[in-house]
């Protein structure tokens, strides 16, 4: 494998990172209303959301990216592979974020809600000032863990022609017929990218636990 191919493979890295970050950001925003719907007192909405979450999680990402890219993309709006990848993984991470947020929500001790009630805070202030920040802090380690998973799943975007890391890896494999080195390089690149997030999630968990320890 020549240096030219080496750099060609690595040229996929920025797109891999971009898809991961954009999908994560989209998921973190969209996950929120989904979480609210998931915990809504109105039963039909809640059940619908549960089914929706189950559906999105049940179908493998590769099927989703085809459905969105060729389905929605063809009939409604034209989109490039990058947009489709972000929408697909944004959707998938949104439902996962919703569940992560819900876990964080449940982790807020009952006493916090009782105190906010006893202090006569309005529902909105109770939510915004007491529940939300703690929920978010409790969710952070899980979000970091999820981000690692998302980074790797983004490889699937190569199937609709996004020239990210895996796509470039496969291209070089086809050009050179050398699977082992290319695979090693691609794998190592993913691991190197995931290490900082994994490290962050471990340490974040510890720091936050200490911070919120009563």
């Amino acid at each position, binding site marked *: 494998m020549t240096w030219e191919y080496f750099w060609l493979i690595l040229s996929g890295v920025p797109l891999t990172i971009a898809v991961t970050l954009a999908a994560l950001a989209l998921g973190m925003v969209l996950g929120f209303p989904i979480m609210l719907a998931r915990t809504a007192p109105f039963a039909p909405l809640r059940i619908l959301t549960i089914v929706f979450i189950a559906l999105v999680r049940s179908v493998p990402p590769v099927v989703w990216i085809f459905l969105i890219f060729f389905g929605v993309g063809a009939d409604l709006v034209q989109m490039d592979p990058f947009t489709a990848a972000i929408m697909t993984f944004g959707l998938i991470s949104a439902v996962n974020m919703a569940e992560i947020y819900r876990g964080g929500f449940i982790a807020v*001790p009952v*006493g*916090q809600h*009782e*105190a906010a*009630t*006893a*202090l*006569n*805070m*309005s529902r909105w*202030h109770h939510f915004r*000032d*007491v529940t939300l*920040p*703690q929920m978010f*802090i409790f969710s952070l380690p899980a979000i970091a863990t999820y981000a690692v998973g998302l980074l790797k799943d983004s490889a699937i975007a190569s199937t609709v022609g996004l020239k990210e890391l895996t796509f470039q890896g496969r291209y070089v494999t086809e050009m050179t017929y050398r699977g082992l080195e290319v695979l090693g390089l691609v794998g190592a690149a993913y691991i190197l990218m995931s290490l900082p997030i994994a490290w962050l999630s471990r340490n974040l968990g510890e720091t936050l636990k*200490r*911070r*919120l*320890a*009563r």
Partner: protein
Amino acid sequence: MTKTLIKTWSSTVASSGKTLVSLQRMSKRYGDHLVLPQIDLRVSEGEVLAIIGPSGSGKSTLLRCLNYIEQPSSGVITVADTQIEVGKDDNKRRVRELRRNLGMVFQSFNLFPHMSVLRNITLPQVRVLGRSEKEAEDVARRLLERVGLADKASQYPSRCSGGQQQRIAIARALALGPKVMLFDEPTSALDPELGLEVLGVMRELADSGMTMIVVTHEMSFAKNVSDHVVVMADGAIIEEGPSREVIPNPQTERARRFLRAVNER
């Protein structure tokens, strides 16, 4: 500002014997389980009432129903000028009106761990009373000084001892200027010396004329600080009267058994 503060701390110095809190036939059930069959209670302005009794007798439930943290099942609740008939006119607005006169302190402090001590005290003032940040901060600092923690303002709660946290919780409740303070075993999560700090603050508060309802296992506090005592067992008030009479010399067999247990430890 100073006016506000004085009001928050001792709005009821001039104890007058006027009834400030009353519960009439209040009951509470969880599903099939009738936890409080029917409670009648009356607390006068400036009075300190201690509620004692074995575990599970419904002391916490009583306090929590009184300020609607738990929805009571029936009865009439009156605090100062607000009277609520359970199930009739207990809409959100009325309940908030009721709570405005009630401050509450929990066994487990329940400070907001993600806010500094100062913010814990100013935030509710800003949100609930609509005070300016500046004004709220002045009130908070004055109260922190009263509970002996002026230097902790910028710390986070987790950096404070349990006794300090509980004193901060008291300051937080007082900052909203309640007419009545409710305490649910405020010292039982604390070890003796730290508990003493908290009891000291409570005693001072009582002396300043605050109306207080205190669920407690601290007999010397009940005996020396409270005016009246209520003994509960199995969701009912089995004995009540002036603390100095009831505690050393209970009349019912059940109350006698409980008090013996407490004193023999």
